[in-house]
């Protein structure tokens, strides 16, 4: 077995671009899926049964499906439904947003529900409006419960972006797999891919632990 690691150095800029696309996908998905999750959580608490039911169905469906299937489904179904052909990047982004919005909605819902009802009632009793109660009593407390879970979701999402490589989004996994099949340096490229993910993901995992320790609520 002869190994030739120079291929990794030669393709450093391609891999760098791939890593940038991975980061862009992660950040964009989160930017869309946090408001998306809030909207879904509010819809689930709606007085209108149809709205609540739709949101519940949406969340339960996209939480209980393999992401890979969602990616393929988006790839084939979105162009037919919307009648425009989307780039692989947009398609992958859509699949990730559907998945992560569903997760985030559960995070926000449980964060808000964890604040005892008595506090809301007390706020209303001293004459605060519903919006005031939410902004000044519920939100500052719920935030501390939501933030650590959002951080964990971020790390999972960062890893999950590797799955959109199957529809040829040029992120890190796809780039590395491409170079592997063109250069036949299989072991070198796959190990480099793992190492780059590790270098990027390890600090994120550690940061998440820190956020859990710093902001996590202990009962």
């Amino acid at each position, binding site marked *: *077995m002869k190994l030739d690691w120079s291929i990794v150095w030669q393709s450093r800029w391609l891999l760098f671009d791939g890593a940038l696309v991975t980061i862009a996908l992660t950040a964009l998905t989160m930017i869309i899926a946090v408001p998306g999750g809030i909207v879904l959580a509010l819809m689930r608490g709606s007085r209108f049964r149809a709205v609540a039911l739709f949101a519940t169905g949406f969340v339960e469906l996209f939480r209980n499906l*393999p992401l890979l299937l969602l990616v393929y489904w988006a790839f084939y179904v979105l162009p037919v439904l919307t009648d425009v052909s989307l780039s692989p990047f947009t398609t992958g982004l859509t699949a990730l947003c559907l998945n992560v919005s569903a997760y985030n909605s559960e995070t926000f819902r449980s964060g808000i529900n964890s604040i005892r009802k008595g506090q809301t009632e007390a706020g209303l009793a001293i004459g605060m409006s519903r919006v005031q109660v939410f902004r000044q009593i519920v939100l500052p407390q719920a935030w501390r419960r939501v933030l650590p879970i959002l951080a964990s979701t971020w790390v999972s999402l960062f890893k999950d972006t590797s799955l959109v490589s199957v529809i040829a989004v040029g992120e890190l996994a796809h780039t590395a797999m491409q170079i592997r099949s063109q250069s036949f340096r*299989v072991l070198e490229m*796959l190990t480099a891919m793992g190492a780059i993910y590790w270098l990027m993901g390890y600090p994120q995992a550690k940061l998440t632990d820190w956020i859990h320790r710093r902001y996590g609520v202990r009962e």
Partner: protein
Amino acid sequence: MDFDFSPLIDSWRFLASGLGMTLLLSVTAVLCSFALGLAVGLGRLYGPVWLRVPLVFYIDSMRAIPVFVVLVWIYFSVPILTGRSFAPFWAALAGITLHVAAYVAEVIRAGISSIRKGQVQAGLALGMSRTQIIRDILLPQAVVRMLPAFGSIISVTIKDTAIAAVIAVPELMRQAETLAGETYRPIEIFSTIMVVYFLVIFPVTRLIDWFYGRVAHLGRS
């Protein structure tokens, strides 16, 4: 736009065999990762330092690397390193187990750490051994507290088995891809597969939640 579901009716056996493979891979992966995760979790909590340091490194690394990367690396690189090839099923089982076991280990550690120290001290004061304390006091309570987390780990594992399609394990996702390619009916096929996956994963998580609701009081102290 017209739909044609006849490929699904014609090839239902092909897809059913995929579902069987998905279930087989899920069950074996869950069993293996719980066994490995228990060993790693306990080793991390009670092991000597030379064992704890590499275990922490292993757990944190698995939290940083995507399953996809682990699977692909095992399937393509291990044969190059060892000179021996193996069926994709074993690569998938090994990759998913290595990945999920790290999460199981974390859940076990968190569950055991959540039991108050006073209980261990009480056990020691009564003259119980460490093994007895872990087995008779800590684990029975901790297991109940871990149930919700185990539920989500099981559902994550079933979802992760779909990634085995990438290395050509003939499970449900892979069979669906193949059939979609042959019949040019991807929308009908992937939409149907979605329903099938949902019908497998949703009841599993619900069942564990329901069971936890019934036994939650056993974990309180």
